[in-house]
């Protein structure tokens, strides 16, 4: 008995030990140990990094490549500023006060004692712009052999920008994103589009975001003692006061692609726990009342993803709500940390707080866990995220009021994507498949965010919610903690759709993706007319010149007149999708017609005693991609009740406008 108890004790102890040491979720290629000091006087980061990088390929790797994002703000000729132009708000600060920011590596050695700094140099893989110093190549005297690990240590200094894009300081608020020299992603042959192994390390561009390798982070931040730090990851211990008016905060997080943090003496901390996940909210005092909104919406988003995908795999999630003067750092996603935006000026019915919280949270799954390349295929994170933002918001607040519900003005989230996409000057300006920096005329955002969400919505409705859900779950399960490409996404969709609908969609949905993802086609189908004409007998002279046959109304055996009825449908856009057309007769009988949607015009004809009352193309409203939903239906007789209502309101407001202007007299 005693031995049994000892055995059971040992067994549970071992099990407990094992469960506390969770198996790696990712390949943990790039692992960082960073000690950083925030110098609030000089606006600098003074840091030491130890990087442990594992060669994930069968190649011998002879160099490392690093992103030095802060160098995008180093001079006016950087690729970032060339593409964007110097922001008007910053011109004086940059050009006259010389407040450029930068990051400089002061030394670098590997674990064999080799000096790596001597030969490191900037490269410009995207545009050959020699003034751009955002990518650093570090040749390795001793190359990294297949599956071997290298340890690199270096000291570096970063000059923090005044809140630029997503990062920087303003007054005593600091948000540190893209703040450290970050190694690129080495893509072995066969990964994504790589035919041979090589670094994927793009320069910092004005459009597009990031691409990072999975790894573990241990970061120690030393900040003034009155500052509160919010960060990716969790704290293994309490902050340590160093006795020199500084405090060191430690944070750790495993299996992530990036690390961000923020600090301010004014942060007010609020916490909640959701199924073992610690949610930490850091706001400024004037925004504390937003706490309920964050703590209400975030658990609903977590619940949605647990139901539809898998449970959020990290133990913590931090929300930093920047103050008004830190507004340019808001609305961004980092592993286990999101930034939002809110303003006391906005009424509750304007749901920007909820939208941003949901959006940035969805990125935890699509970008941080399914770690796509945002520089090359931004739709895979922004588009999918925008789509799920719409699904969650519409589910919670209603599809016609999930974005704004204020003073009678109501807009839905998914419908806002559709409106945003089609209200572009040229919705066919670019396909989704371009590199982020190649989008013409500032079209990046609308095409990657809105158009993608609209066609994903259409895809869901075409293949059915169940199949779509299964496909997306499969995609997530297969590619979590990896780096899929668009092709991988399409393959999963095709696989699940072909499995669930072999008859209907054959090999899958390539015909769809060719148009919406790789093409710029616009969808617009219309019912252009309905006609109901009496059927009459033939008239005229046929065989006998003396006999002239006169036309007569044709009637059926019940004595009812017979009508020849036509519905004319048109394809006004260049996108072709299979369509259903609902035809309703005056006696209430309905017919569903199938049309391949290929011809520019098709007529459906009927003969019978009932006239057609109305016809509607896409009656189940599957084709969210249709540019004009108003021409999707046609009634044989005009239906003017809605018109009357609007005319009434228009007239009322005209009368008030006339009287209102009369106040000036």
């Amino acid at each position: 008995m005693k031995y049994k108890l000892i055995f059971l004790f040992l067994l549970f102890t071992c099990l407990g030990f094992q469960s506390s040491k969770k198996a790696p979720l990712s390949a943990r290629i790039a692992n960082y140990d960073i000690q950083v000091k925030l110098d609030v006087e000089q606006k600098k980061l003074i840091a030491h990094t130890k990087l442990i990088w594992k060669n994930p390929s069968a190649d011998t790797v002879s160099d490392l490549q690093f992103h030095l994002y802060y160098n995008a703000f180093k001079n006016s000729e950087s690729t970032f500023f060339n593409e964007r132009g110097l922001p008007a708000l910053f011109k004086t600060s940059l050009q006259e006060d010389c407040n450029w920011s930068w990051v400089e590596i002061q030394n670098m050695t590997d674990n064999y004692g080799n000096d790596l700094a001597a030969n490191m140099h900037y490269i410009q893989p995207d545009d050959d712009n020699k003034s751009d110093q955002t990518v650093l190549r570090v040749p390795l005297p001793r190359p990294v052999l297949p599956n071997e690990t290298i340890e690199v240590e270096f000291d570096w200094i970063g000059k923090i920008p005044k809140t630029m894009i997503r990062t920087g300081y303003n007054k005593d608020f600091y948000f540190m994103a893209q703040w450290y020299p970050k190694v690129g992603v080495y893509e072995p042959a066969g990964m994504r589009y790589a035919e041979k192994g090589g670094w994927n390390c793009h320069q910092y561009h004005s459009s597009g975001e990031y691409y990072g390798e999975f790894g573990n982070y241990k970061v120690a931040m030393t900040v003034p003692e009155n500052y509160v730090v919010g960060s990716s990851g969790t704290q293994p211990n309490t902050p340590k006061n160093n006795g020199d008016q500084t405090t060191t905060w430690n944070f750790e997080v495993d299996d992530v692609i990036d690390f961000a943090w923020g600090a301010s003496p004014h942060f007010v901390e609020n916490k909640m726990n959701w199924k073992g996940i610690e949610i930490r909210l850091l706001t400024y005092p004037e925004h504390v009342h937003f706490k309920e909104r964050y703590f209400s919406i975030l658990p609903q988003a977590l619940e949605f993803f647990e139901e539809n995908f898998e449970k959020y795999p990290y133990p913590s999630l931090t929300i930093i709500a920047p103050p008004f003067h830190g507004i340019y750092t808001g609305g961004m996603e980092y592993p286990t940390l999101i930034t939002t935006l809110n303003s006391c000026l906005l009424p509750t019915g304007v749901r920007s707080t909820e939208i941003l919280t949901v959006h940035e949270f969805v990125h935890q799954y699509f970008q941080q866990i399914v770690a796509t390349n945002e520089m090359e295929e931004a739709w895979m994170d922004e588009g999918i995220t925008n789509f799920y933002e719409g699904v969650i918001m519409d589910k919670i607040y209603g599809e016609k009021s999930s974005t704004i519900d204020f003073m009678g003005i109501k807009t839905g989230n998914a419908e806002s994507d559709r409106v945003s996409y089609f209200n572009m000057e040229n919705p066919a300006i670019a396909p989704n498949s371009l590199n982020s920096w190649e989008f013409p005329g500032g079209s990046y955002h609308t095409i990657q965010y809105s158009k993608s969400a609209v066609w994903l919505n259409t895809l869901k409705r075409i293949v059915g919610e169940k199949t779509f859900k299964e496909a997306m779950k499969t995609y997530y399960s297969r590619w979590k903690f990896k780096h899929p490409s668009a092709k991988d996404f399409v393959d999963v969709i095709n696989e699940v759709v072909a499995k669930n609908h072999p008859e209907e969609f054959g090999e899958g949905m390539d015909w769809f993706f060719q148009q919406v993802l790789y093409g710029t086609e616009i969808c617009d189908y219309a019912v252009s007319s309905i006609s109901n004409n009496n059927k009459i007998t033939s008239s005229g002279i046929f065989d006998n010149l003396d006999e002239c046959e006169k036309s007569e109304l044709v009637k059926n055996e019940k004595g009812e007149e017979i009508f020849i009825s036509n519905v004319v449908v048109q394809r006004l856009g260049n996108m072709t999708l299979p369509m259903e057309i609902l035809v309703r007769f005056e006696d209430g009988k309905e017919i569903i017609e199938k049309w391949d949607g290929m011809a520019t015009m098709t007529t459906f004809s009927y003969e019978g005693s009932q006239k057609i009352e109305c016809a509607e193309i896409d009656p189940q409203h599957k084709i969210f991609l249709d540019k004009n939903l108003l021409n999707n239906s046609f009634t044989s007789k005009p239906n003017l009740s809605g018109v009357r209502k609007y005319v009434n309101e228009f007239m009322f407001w005209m009368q008030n406008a006339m009287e209102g202007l009369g106040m000036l007299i």
Partner: protein
Amino acid sequence: MWVLLYLLNFVFALLSAVPFSGFLSKSIGHSLANTNMLDGFDYTFISDLLREYGSRFSVVMNLSMGIILLFFIFSIFWMGGILSILKNEENDYSFRKFWQGSAVFFWKLTRLTFYFTFFQVVILGFFAFLFLQQGVSPFEVESEISIIKSIIILLPIYLFFATIFFMIQDYAKIHIVHDDSKFIFQPIKNAFRFVFRNFRKCLGLYLLNLLTFAAFFGIYWILSNSFNSNSTPTIALLFLVGQAFIFSRIAVKLLNLGSAMELFQIEAK
């Protein structure tokens, strides 16, 4: 006069409502989406309508703007007639008197309108300048609370000054009609003097009339939101409620001018 002013307002509004109705009927009269309009504001519907048929809509809107401007000019014209009737010295309430007053004072009231519009723009510009001086850029202010505080402090002061000038304008109109002087600067000067001599009475009366207007608007708001106008009878009911509000709005305008005229005549004696 009350009915006449309402009818004029109605006819002018109808001039733009008819083409608007034509535009909607032609664009979506045969569409089932038409019924979406019955449920109130529909973002998708309105966006598609403006995007796909926007060129036709802009023609209607330009026409409507023109009609509003035309009504504005006519309103200046009618103001002389209204004040002549309200002056009521000869107990003559005829149309002849109305049109005669309209013609006689048109040019003077036009100039007065121009000057006071200019004053209002200057006041608005001054307060906008003060507001912007506090800073609105994230780099200038600590938080949006300071913007809200600026609004809370400046908006009532602005409204107070704007109200004073609207009030003075009313008494200037009365002086123009009453004095029938050649130039309008003397009536403006007299109006300033009158208002500041009888400030509490003038302001009290003006606020009382504003309150009356607010009460009518409140009744309209409650009534129009108490039912859904999604069928022909309820659309007709909403139309009647709306017209009742317009009718009451014109009444308040006349009440304001009439009571100011009365105050002026009492104080002038």
